[in-house]
C-alpha cells in the first residue's frame, strides 16, 4: 500500500528569513494525522535566507540528520562542534541526554536549501554525539547511496544512528530506474527532494512523499524533464 503525501498538503511556515515545509507536525504546525511515520518523526524542507538561521536551541532524545540540497549550512553546538555542511555531505547528531546547537546559512549572498530529518531513537538518554561526512556524488547517481543507518561497519561509510532505520539518497535521470527490495514487515518512506520521479508508477514531484507498507518491491524512476533526487527510508 502506497499513501501519497502531496507537497502542497504539508505544513508551511514563511517567516521571511525561513521558508519551511513540514511533511509531519512540527513547531506551530500540528496535525494529529501527520505525526510521523514509524520512527521517522520530522522531515522539514527548509530554505534559509543568506546569513540567517536558527539561533541556539536545545534538543534531546532524537537522531537529527541534515541533508543539504543547495548552499552551505553552518552548525555549532554545545559539544564544541563547529562545521559547515554543503551538498553531498551529511550531518548526523544524536541529541541523547541533551545538546544545544545553532544552524545558519553560511553564505552572505546565497540561500541554503536543506532537509532536516528527525528519527526517534531506540533508547533515551544516549550520549550526545556528532558525525559529518562527505561522499562522492557519483555514488548516488543511478543508485541508492546509504546515508545513515545503524551499522557502524557499513561500506561505504554512513552516519550511524541509534535506530533500526536506514536513509538512502539517489539521483535518477529521466527514464532511469532504481529498484529496492523491502524485507517482509518493513516499511518505507520516499521523499522527492528535487525534480520529479515515479514510485511504482505513481508520480511524485518535488516535496511529495509516500508512505509504503505491505509492499516488497519498489521501483523509482526519473520523470519530468531531468528526473529527480529522492530520499528513501527503510523503517522497522
Amino acid at each position: 500500500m502506497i499513501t501519497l503525501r502531496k507537497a502542497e498538503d504539508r505544513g508551511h511556515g514563511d517567516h521571511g528569513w525561513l521558508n519551511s515545509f513540514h511533511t509531519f507536525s512540527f513547531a506551530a504546525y500540528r496535525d494529529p494525522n501527520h505525526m510521523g511515520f514509524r520512527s521517522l518523526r520530522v522531515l522539514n524542507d527548509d530554505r534559509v535566507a543568506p546569513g540567517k538561521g536558527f539561533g541556539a536551541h536545545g534538543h534531546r532524545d532524537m537522531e537529527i540528520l541534515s541533508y543539504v540540497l543547495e548552499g552551505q549550512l553552518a552548525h555549532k553546538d554545545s559539544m564544541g562542534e563547529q562545521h559547515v555542511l554543503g551538498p553531498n555531505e551529511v550531518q548526523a547528531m544524536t541529541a541523547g541526554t541533551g545538546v544545544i546547537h545553532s544552524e545558519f546559512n553560511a553564505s552572505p549572498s546565497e540561500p541554503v536549501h536543506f532537509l532536516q530529518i528527525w528519527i526517534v531513537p531506540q533508547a533515551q538518554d544516549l550520549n550526545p554525539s556528532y558525525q559529518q561526512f562527505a561522499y562522492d556524488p557519483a555514488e548516488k547517481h543511478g543508485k541508492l547511496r546509504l546515508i545513515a543507518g545503524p551499522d557502524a561497519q557499513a561500506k561505504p561509510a554512513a552516519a550511524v544512528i541509534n535506530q533500526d532505520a536506514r536513509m538512502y539518497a539517489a539521483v535518477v535521470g529521466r527514464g532511469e530506474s532504481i529498484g529496492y527490495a523491502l524485507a517482509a514487515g518493513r516499511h518505507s518512506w520516499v521523499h522527492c527532494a528535487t525534480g520529479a520521479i515515479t514510485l511504482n508508477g505513481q508520480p511524485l514531484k518535488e516535496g511529495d512523499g509516500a508512505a509504503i507498507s505491505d509492499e516488497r518491491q519498489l521501483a523509482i524512476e526519473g520523470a519530468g524533464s531531468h528526473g529527480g533526487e529522492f530520499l528513501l527510508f527503510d523503517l522497522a
Partner: protein
Amino acid sequence: MPMAELNVLVVFYSRYGEAEKLALAAGVGAIQMKANIRLRRLADLTDAATIGADARWKANLDRMNMDYVAPRPADPEWADLIVLAAPANAPREVEEYCRQLQATASMAGKMAAPLVPGGAADCYRRISAAATAAGFVLAPADPADGQHTDGARMYGRRASEAARAMKDQSSGSKRL
C-alpha cells in the same frame, strides 16, 4: 506520577564568551533534566563606541547577535527557573534585567540560579541580591558551579531538580 513539566529560561550577558559557555552548559544540564529551555542574551549597556574599540568584544557581539535574541516579555512568565549568568566583572546587565522584572511582575514562586565564571563572590552576591529583590527563590549553589562547564552543567541539573521540586510542592499546596 508523571514528572511536572519544567520551563527553564537561560538569560546571560557575555562579552568574550566565557559567561556564554557557562550559560550553555547550565542549559544542557536543564535539558538533561528533561526541561524545556529558552536561551536569551541581554543587550550591552555599554555604548557602541566602547565596544567597537575592542575588536574581540565586537567580534563576539556580532556572533552572539546571530545566535541569540534578547529576552522577550513573555519569557519570565513562561519560566519556572531562570538561570542568570554574567561575567565576573560585569553584573550590571543582569542586575538591570532583575530590576525590570521586579518592576513589571512578581517572580514569587519562581527560582533563580545566578551563575558567574570562577564563582566571583562579589558578582554572585550582586546578582543574587537583585534576584531576591525581584521575588525569586535562589537555587542551591556550590563553589564549583562557575568554575568550569561541567560544574555549570551540574548546576543546571541541580537547579532544575530544585525548581521542579518547588513547583511540585506549590501545585500540591494548591490542590489541598
